[in-house]
């Protein structure tokens, strides 16, 4: 293995989208013949970095050189012809074609350029297609899909689709293969097949870089790692060293310290659970997002669900709020099964969600955003109220709004401002406030700290115990595990769609295993030596 020659050189890459600095002075190399892993928590900028390298996004500053050739500013077609190829999240196989045709399509661009080439291709189409077919079979052989060559691509399982995407990428005769989250949603068996395929690909002379959230998978396969957090590189080097780097652990778990008055426990502990998930499984097509989890939340409790990106946290919340169907198991809320209840009806049942990314209505004022939180109740009071809430409905709205503003006094000043002009923290307050307007029994928060400064995160999370005091059950999904565990009564750790640890907030906080369970590092020693 030639470790000294640099294949890809990324220097000083910075990208800004609107008000957000997505990448800032990112620099690293990929060496010929290695397998490199790019990791980092959600929102770190990994996708943006991939898009910059592959030519889909032009960086504001910085450069990307491939084998000495400048790639920045060139379109994706050019980047590919230079010898670099990427796959996409969710494989994106071409469903209208067979497996072998998918790979053949990759070879078309190489067949000859210009008018003369085009004409030659045209005249000898039969020959060209035969040559493409042979090439495609070779690549399929390499990844282990040769037997499925003539199957329609859409019939493949998720794992097979990822292998097909890799084979297709290889069909471009690229020297550097970049895989975008190839293991997401795969079962353990599928992951092993994928790992074996990647090793064979490298043995055939192709350098590999991949982005992944499954850190056990990454550490078993990659020789070196680059860690991205908030758009900057915080660590890079040999896998073993990086995985022990406390900075990396902190980036994933968070470091925010909260001041929380704990004194509720007791009463809540003995009550029957308000929300109960039993063997709940969620699948998106062929992807396994959740594989049968059990979870409970009681009234007046704060329960947190933590885990790395892709672990299945959002899927859990989506299943509870009705935005996705269950592939198995059952959810019982307030004694009644939720099965069959449409998403639009669940808010009336007492379940409210402050969704990921706030999802405010940007052109409406804060007041209007909050009022919309009460839509179901206003409508239930009579259709006419929808035009102008009548006396009774209006009083309720006012009362609910007073409570919310009492909770978030800063919003009172901004009540008539357009929601799209608020700061991140204020926006999150509106999102939570909007959910509270329906006076829910269960309040779910999907990554409220995302994109917020630590000070603002503290402000928001420290308010949660007040809600719990009023008897509301709070289910908090967070990537910032450190902060979440300080405020929660109990917590569940989710990894790869399964619950790998649970206990009281304090227990999990003190336990050193949380970090490992969360990141999957504990598997490192067992799988690192399994050679292809």
């Amino acid at each position, binding site marked *: 293995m030639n470790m000294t020659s640099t294949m890809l050189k990324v220097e000083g890459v910075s990208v800004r989208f609107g008000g957000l600095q997505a990448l800032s002075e990112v620099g690293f190399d990929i060496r010929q013949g290695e397998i490199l892993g790019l990791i980092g928590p959600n929102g770190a900028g990994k996708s943006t970095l991939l898009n910059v390298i592959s030519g889909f996004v032009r960086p504001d500053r910085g450069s990307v050189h491939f084998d000495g050739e400048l790639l920045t500013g060139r379109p994706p077609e050019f980047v590919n012809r230079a010898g670099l190829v990427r796959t996409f999240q969710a494989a994106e196989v071409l469903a209208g074609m067979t497996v072998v045709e998918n790979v053949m399509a990759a070879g078309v661009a190489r067949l000859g350029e210009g008018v003369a080439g085009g004409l030659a291709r045209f005249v000898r189409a039969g020959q060209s297609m035969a040559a493409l077919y042979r090439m495609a079979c070779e690549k399929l052989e390499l990844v282990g899909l040769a037997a499925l060559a003539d199957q329609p691509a859409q019939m493949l399982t998720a794992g097979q689709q990822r292998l097909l995407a890799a084979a297709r990428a290889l069909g471009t005769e690229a020297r550097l293969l970049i895989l975008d989250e190839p293991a997401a949603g795969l079962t353990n068996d599928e992951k092993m097949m994928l790992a074996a395929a990647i090793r064979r690909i490298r043995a055939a002379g192709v350098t590999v870089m991949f982005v992944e959230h499954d850190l056990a998978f990454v550490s078993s396969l990659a020789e070196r790692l680059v860690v991205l957090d908030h758009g900057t590189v915080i660590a890079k080097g040999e896998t073993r060293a990086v995985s022990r780097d406390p900075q990396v652990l902190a980036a994933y778990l968070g470091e925010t310290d909260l001041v929380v008055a704990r004194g509720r426990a007791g009463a809540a502990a003995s009550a029957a659970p308000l929300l109960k998930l039993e063997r709940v499984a969620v699948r998106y097509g062929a992807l396994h997002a959740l594989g049968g989890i059990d979870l409970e939340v009681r009234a007046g409790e704060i329960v947190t669900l933590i885990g790395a990106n892709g672990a299945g946290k959002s899927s859990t919340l989506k299943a509870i*709020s009705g*935005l996705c169907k269950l592939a198995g198991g059952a959810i019982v809320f307030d004694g009644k099964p939720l099965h069959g209840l449409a*998403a*639009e*009806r669940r*808010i*009336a049942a007492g379940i409210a*969600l402050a*969704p990921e990314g706030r*999802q*405010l*209505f*940007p*052109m*409406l004022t804060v007041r*209007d955003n909050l*009022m*919309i*939180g009460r*839509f*179901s109740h*206003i*409508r239930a009071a009579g259709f006419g*109220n*929808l*035009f*102008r*809430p009548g006396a009774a409905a209006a009083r309720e709205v006012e009362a609910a709004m007073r409570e919310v503003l009492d909770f978030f006094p800063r919003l009172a000043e901004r009540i008539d401002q357009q929601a799209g002009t608020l700061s991140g923290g204020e926006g999150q307050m509106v999102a939570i406030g*909007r959910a509270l307007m*329906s006076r829910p029994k269960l309040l779910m928060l999907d990554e409220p700290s995302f994109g917020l400064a630590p000070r603002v995160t503290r402000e928001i999370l420290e308010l949660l115990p007040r809600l719990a005091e009023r008897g509301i059950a709070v289910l908090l999904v967070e990537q910032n595990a450190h902060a979440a565990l300080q405020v929660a009564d109990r917590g569940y750790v989710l990894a790869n769609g399964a619950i790998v640890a649970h206990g009281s907030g304090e227990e999990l906080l003190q336990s050193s295993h949380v970090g490992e369970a969360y990141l999957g590092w504990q598997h490192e020693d067992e799988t690192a030596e399994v050679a292809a």
Partner: protein
Amino acid sequence: MTEFAQYLISGLVVGCIYGLIATGFTAVYNATHIVNFAQGESSMLAALCAASLVVAGAPLLLAIAVAVVVVGVVNILVERLAIRRSGTDVTRGIIITIGVGIVLQGLAALAWGTDAQPLPAFSGPGSISAYGVVVPRQALWVVGTTAVVMALLYVFLTRTFLGKAFRACAMNGQAAALMGIPTGLMRGIGFLLSGTVGAVAGVIIAPIALMQYDSGVALGIKGFVACIIGGFGNPIGAALGGLLLGATETLAAGYISSGFKNAIAFVLLLLFLLVRPGGLLGEFGAAKR
């Protein structure tokens, strides 16, 4: 100078109609992300219905009111029967609305033949002249009604709870569903609004511009052009776009050639699509699926 003023005023009058139709497009697009290629047929149907009712002896006001209501109902039916089934595929939705437009046009030709159906002017024939500019009396009705309709729409969308919920649905459909806002209801409202506004546009212009079975096509396209100029999603933009289009069209027809009048709208359309697909004031701007 008077000539210029004459063209300008006439252009602005017809621009009001384009603005109304553009608003109709916006209403449907906001609720469903589909461009309703059958928008113009609402105007055509309302005008022809009203004309028939008047011929049958109904008082003008009643005829107009009934026609507008009928067209509103037809739009709701179209949404339920045809559009709902198209799911989220925009291409299919577009082709389905093209089909609906053809069907309505064909039915109109069957019912009324190919002759124009005149509708009497609301306050009698005759014109008004001021400063050398002559406009038919009906023109005042056009401008006045447009202003009233736009104002009502504005009030609905910004002052009523339902209107705000409707806009919320357009801004973020998933969040709206989370809040319990039923998407079916919003789609129905979108179509009802668009049908009603289109119908009103049809009946107020009918006394000036003879309406017949195929008038809907040109009106629809020009309304769409107004939308593109003014920006999808914004009723004020739609109105502005309409006025701009009307004025440009009439001025060009007057000074260059009347035959190419229609082509002006289409050329403007291409221009804006290529240069500034977000329009002048678009709320939800860019050219996207």
